[in-house]
């Protein structure tokens, strides 16, 4: 993006403001800001999960349109826009190609209602990357494979040659490290 400086200033609060304008005024300009920022990231996430590029592109559009259509359900007090979108993208992906897992998640409409604690991570991407960088390789690897590749503990064990117990304990240690950086409420 040409205006990197502008992009840098856009933090969680900025995106929450855009969501509010979409919800209240059906503001297309705000929506397109959200679209231009988030759709390439949702797209990258879906490609990482193994979606073919045409499917990733379709689902990324759908995820962003869900944000337009369900903006009135979004509550900035309860979740960052990125969290909300992650959930939508994850569920769309599961519905599309991992249908079996769809039995295990509440539909998006019900999500906000069931959240009672403020669990926003007070963190920017740079800081998160920095924490990921400090993790030992095996911990970073299990986080990476869980989130970006959708791999189960057994699959990770098989691929990396780590015993199943080590996969689980590595994940727990990673959670501990995130907690140290982002506070008890963070994770």
């Amino acid at each position: 993006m040409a205006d990197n400086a502008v992009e840098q200033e856009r933090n969680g609060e900025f995106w929450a403001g855009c969501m509010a304008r979409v919800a209240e005024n059906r503001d297309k300009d705000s929506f397109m800001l959200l679209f231009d920022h988030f759709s390439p990231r949702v797209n990258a996430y879906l490609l990482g999960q193994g979606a073919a590029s045409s499917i990733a592109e379709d689902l990324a559009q759908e995820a962003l349109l869900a944000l337009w259509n369900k903006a009135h359900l979004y509550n900035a007090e309860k979740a960052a826009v990125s969290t909300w979108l992650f959930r939508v993208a994850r569920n769309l992906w599961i519905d599309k190609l991992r249908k079996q897992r769809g039995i295990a998640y509440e539909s998006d409409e019900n999500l906000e209602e069931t959240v009672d604690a403020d669990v926003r991570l007070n963190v920017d991407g740079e800081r998160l990357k920095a924490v990921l960088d400090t993790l030992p390789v095996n911990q970073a690897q299990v986080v990476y494979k869980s989130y970006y590749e959708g791999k189960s503990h057994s699959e990770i064990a098989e691929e990396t040659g780590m015993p199943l117990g080590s996969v689980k304990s590595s994940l727990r240690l990673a959670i501990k490290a995130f907690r140290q950086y982002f506070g008890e409420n963070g994770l």
Partner: protein
Amino acid sequence: MSRIEHHPNEDTLLSYAAGSLPAALALVVGCHIQFCPHCRSQVRAGESLGGELMSALTPKALSNRARENVLERLALQESQSAAPEAVGSLKTAEANSAQDTMPSLLRNMLKEADFDALPWKKTIAPGLKQIVLDCGEGQARLLRIAAGQKMPVHSHRGSELTLILRGGYSDKLGQFNAGDVADLDGSVEHQPVADDDMDCICLAGMDAPLAFKGWLAKLIQPFVGM
């Protein structure tokens, strides 16, 4: 429901949030968090981590056509003056509390809200009935252990999650009551004993890969991709 004492491990909750638990295990977690605010907020925290990790990815732009397409769809919706979808489906939580302890995810799957009306099947183990749930990845089943019944000593090959839905049982790990989850891996050998006062109903999910016994099965294993 009594106070929940036993929860899934943190790694299990994180993987659920990441969308990477096999379906059978994810189903158990999904049902547990309908009862457990503590784990629900842990899952939400895992989802915020997911959001941040997604934001930190190197962006891969959609085609220009996609952007135009989205703008067109917005315009189309406007011309049809489509009202935003109404908040009409928030029934789960309340409807749930009235009815025994059947989590809504399970109710949706079984199309039945009453455990006693389900078609329980006998097993070879005395005092144990079950219903196998079809979920594609891993194995999930509802188990009904007769009051006071001792299960055979067993261990598990992979991960096993068990959510108590009615009654309770105890084993060397403690007493498990409705809402509690036992999160076990292959290292644990245990012998649950159902409480005396009523049948214990639980939902168990396993991700253990199918274990073929015998030389013929071992021989064909590489060819059937198990």
